[in-house]
Each structure stands twice: as structure tokens, then as C-alpha cells.
């Protein structure tokens, strides 16, 4: 017979037995109610939305410069990412991004910026995939130093258990020139995990 009960946290009982007046207060009667309460609270604890974030403020210079040509699509700046641990299949991750970008070299067309997700990034990584909704197109089509302030939002559904990585990528599809993109002033990735 256990003397303590931590709650299994898997099932959420739909009913709780209420002890009636005059009922015998035996272990047989009381324990199921206590266990149900423990299960419910463990379940709610496991369902807590959790915040993960990356922020970097810089008032001069840049934090990343990418130089390439043609149809490149590259994960930018290895350190600019958020790792969301303990994900299971079906979890939802709400993502928000903010960045300032200057395209200092390059012509038309502009650069497309995405927020991407990589499931199980620390194990057997899944395919890096654009997060639906988190897309910003045509950054700095003139090639001049005009800085765009951008914000992105999207939602990712975890398809493979493990640590899901949220990062930025950009795409210079169509460009035939070398492109240099500078992220400056501020960059932010916010990921809120909503467990299944």
C-alpha cells in the first residue's frame, strides 16, 4: 500500500467522487478522491505553456552577415535560435520573431526571411521546415542600406519527439548576385510550447 501518491499525469478523470454526509471515512473511500485530485493537478502541471526565448540587442554594427549567390537557403547565425526541450508529437509551439535586416549587397529580387523548425534537433534531426505563417518577403530589394523592421508569427506542430529548434532562414531564390544581409539593432525569437 503506497503511503504517498505523486499523480500519474496522464489521464484526466471526468468525475470526482464526493463524500456524502454520514459516509465512512475509510481509506477505501478517501484515497480515490485524493488520487483523483493529484492526477488532475499533475495533468494541469504537465499542460503548462512554457516560454523559451532568444534576444540580442545591438546598437551598432551587426550580428550576422551572409554572403552567397543564387538559390541559397541557409540557416543564419548558428547562435540565433531557440531550443524547446521535451516536445512530444502533437505539441503546438507558438512562435514570434522580430528582427531588423539590412541588405547591403544584392539586387532584385529581395530576400525572403522565414522562421523554421527542426524537430529532435539534438537527436536525429528532422527536416528543417518553414513554420506556417512565419514568412516575410522581399527584404531590401534595392540593395541599398534601407533597414526593414520585421515581425513574424506562426504556429508549429511537433512531428517528432525531442528538442525542437526554432531558427531563422532566408532565401535568395532568383538572385544572381552575391547577397549580404546584415541583422542589426535587435533580433528576437519567442517560442511558447503548448503541450498536447
Amino acid at each position, binding site marked *: 500500500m503506497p503511503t504517498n501518491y505523486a499523480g500519474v499525469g496522464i489521464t484526466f478523470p471526468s468525475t470526482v467522487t464526493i463524500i456524502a454526509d454520514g459516509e465512512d471515512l475509510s481509506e477505501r473511500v478517501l484515497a480515490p478522491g485524493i488520487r483523483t485530485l493529484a492526477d488532475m493537478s499533475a495533468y494541469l502541471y504537465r499542460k503548462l505553456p512554457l516560454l523559451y526565448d532568444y534576444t540580442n540587442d545591438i546598437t551598432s554594427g551587426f550580428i550576422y552577415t551572409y554572403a552567397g549567390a543564387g538559390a541559397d537557403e541557409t540557416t543564419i547565425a548558428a547562435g540565433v535560435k531557440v531550443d524547446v526541450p521535451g516536445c512530444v508529437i502533437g505539441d503546438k509551439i507558438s512562435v514570434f520573431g*522580430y528582427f531588423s535586416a539590412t541588405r547591403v549587397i544584392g539586387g532584385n529580387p529581395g530576400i525572403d526571411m522565414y522562421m523554421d523548425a527542426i524537430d529532435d534537433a539534438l537527436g536525429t534531426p528532422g527536416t528543417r521546415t518553414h513554420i506556417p505563417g512565419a514568412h516575410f518577403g522581399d527584404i531590401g530589394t534595392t540593395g541599398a542600406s534601407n533597414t526593414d523592421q520585421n515581425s513574424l508569427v506562426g504556429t508549429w506542430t511537433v512531428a517528432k519527439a525531442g528538442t525542437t529548434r526554432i531558427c531563422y532562414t532566408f532565401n535568395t531564390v532568383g538572385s544572381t548576385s552575391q547577397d549580404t544581409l546584415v541583422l542589426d539593432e535587435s533580433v*528576437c525569437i519567442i517560442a511558447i510550447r503548448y503541450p498536447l
Partner: protein
Amino acid sequence: MTVYTPDSSAWITDIPIIIDGDKRKASVIQPMYQKSADRFAYLNRVYPKESINNQTGNPLTPTYNSSTPWAIEPNSYIDIPNCAVGDQIVGKVNATITSTNGTTLSYFIVGIDDVSGTPHSGRFSGCQNMSHGVYYSNNGFYIKLFGVWTVAHAGTTRVGFGVAESFSPGTHLDVYEVTVKTVLFSKL
């Protein structure tokens, strides 16, 4: 009657279960219910809490004229009570502004810890918008900011839309619409 105030400071990892033969006394049964109450109090404390402040006007701030950093525009903030050190706040600001004179402006989400006690102010991380916006017309300009604030001083934290003039104090700025939204993530 015994009145029990839940302890919301810590997550209780287990709940004792009475066993057959226990004496059916309050000293045996009450701790179980206390720990259950503690769990719910803890969950209530740490569950993310969302707040929003929408303001519209014509304009909200007709004569903005300041070079003070970390200043928050009138009516453009949310006060979040009972913040603890280590809590995190996600902030989002949308604003429509115009400027009929002046020069380069900078936009921020501003945080002020312990605003009703000993205030400590600063900018949210990840969302500063520096040295942009030379606007001399009434065409309007749409500001959008995301950022994160980590509470460093317990108390009520104020979150709002801040504007600073980088180079030319005296700019006339009108804020026509502003939305401040926050989500408080309490430290687990």
C-alpha cells in the same frame, strides 16, 4: 474551523495517502487536503496570464515633446501586479504614429519594475527599433514590436510603449492608436 491559506511558493511533489488503520483524525487527513490546495495555488500562480490595453484617439498624445529615455506614452501601458524576481513577460506593441516635424525617432517596449515602489526601468530585449523613422508628414507610420522582459525587482511591473528621440529633442509626435499586450510567465 481551521482556515488554511495555501502555500503557493513551491510545487508539492507528492501527496500522502492515508492507509487502512490510520486514525481518522484531522492531523492525518488535513495534510492531504492542504497539499492538494497547495498544488492548485501553485498552478494558479504560474499559469501564464494575459493582459491587453487597446487605446484609440485623435490623437492620444497631441504634444509629445521629450528626450527622456524610457518614458512611456500616456495611456499606453499595462500594470502587472505581484511580479517576482525571475518572472518573464512577453510584450507586444502595435502603434500608429505621425510626426509633423523633428528627426529620427526610436521606439521601444519599456519595462518598469516595482513602479509603485522604487522604480527600475529599462527596455525590453529583442525589440528595439533604433534610428528609424524620419517622418514629416501626416501619412502615419505603423510600429510593431515584440520583446521579452525579465523581472529583476519584485512588485508591480509596468509595460508600455516608449519613444525616444535620438538626435533632435522637440519632435512633435502624435500617437493615434496603440495596443499593448503582455503575457506573464511566472518563474516555476
